[in-house]
């Protein structure tokens, strides 16, 4: 799993996660997520277009970021969800939550 934080001049932050976001790798990205929440950006865009696999631990990390960001008024968008992650999102009804965010 690789992840990258990209800060834009307009006050938004893009978090790009690629590879596998699972029980083994989710703790790695949680510290980056903590930093994003602490910076209180205008918007967070989570780009999952290169995410190949996600499990419930990975979902837990994304949901935690989503809830904390929304609670402080930061907009959250999740883009580029495909294949296995899309199947998990649909099952857990996250596709509608993230699409409406």
């Amino acid at each position, binding site marked *: 799993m690789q992840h990258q934080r990209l800060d834009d001049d307009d006050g938004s932050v893009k978090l790009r996660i690629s590879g596998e976001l*699972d*029980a083994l790798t989710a703790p790695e990205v949680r510290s980056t997520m903590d930093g994003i929440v602490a910076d209180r950006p205008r918007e967070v865009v989570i780009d999952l277009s290169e995410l190949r696999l996600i499990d419930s*631990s990975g979902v837990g990390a994304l949901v935690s970021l989503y809830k904390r960001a929304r609670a402080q008024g930061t907009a959250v968008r999740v883009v580029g969800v495909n294949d296995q992650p899309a*199947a998990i999102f649909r*099952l*857990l009804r*996250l596709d509608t939550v993230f699409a409406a965010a």
Partner: protein
Amino acid sequence: VTGANAEWLFDVEERSPEERIVSVAIPGQLRYRAMGLRMVEFMCKLVRSESRDPERRENRAFDAEVISAFGEAFNNLAIHGFRDWDGFVRVEFGILCDALSIRLVDGGRSVDASVRDAEAPPMLSESKMGWFIITRFMDEVRYEPGCPPDQPNALFMKKELRPVAPQTPGHAQTGGHK
């Protein structure tokens, strides 16, 4: 599946032209999860490639759902079952006609009933989604808690390869949900 049996690693048994059992031993630790997932990925492709029905061969959602279920099952073993000691998981893949079965046999701590909660988690849950994913994505799920080390635990999962489900507007194929 622990101790001396850890030397055992791989086996293929052809029970009939339409039933083969491929068995492999994987260390029950999270860092070996990817090893099991790659095997599941291969087995799903094998089952699809051997289907006589072109509509079933194209059902890639089958792979996504079986991979997801196996990943959660392995997480349970590694995080809960082998929390206090190391051991191996024996994974038996049943390659059937338009179906794949997976049996996980382990000598770890039995998965607690509280973890085996198949109810749909509340919206935006951050945990306790694993067993729900397993039971929703697989057609058959049976768990037999054992009494390790003498009697191992066994989780049996099976999924039928169905024809590709019609797509709904705005959604990619998922197929196969119960």
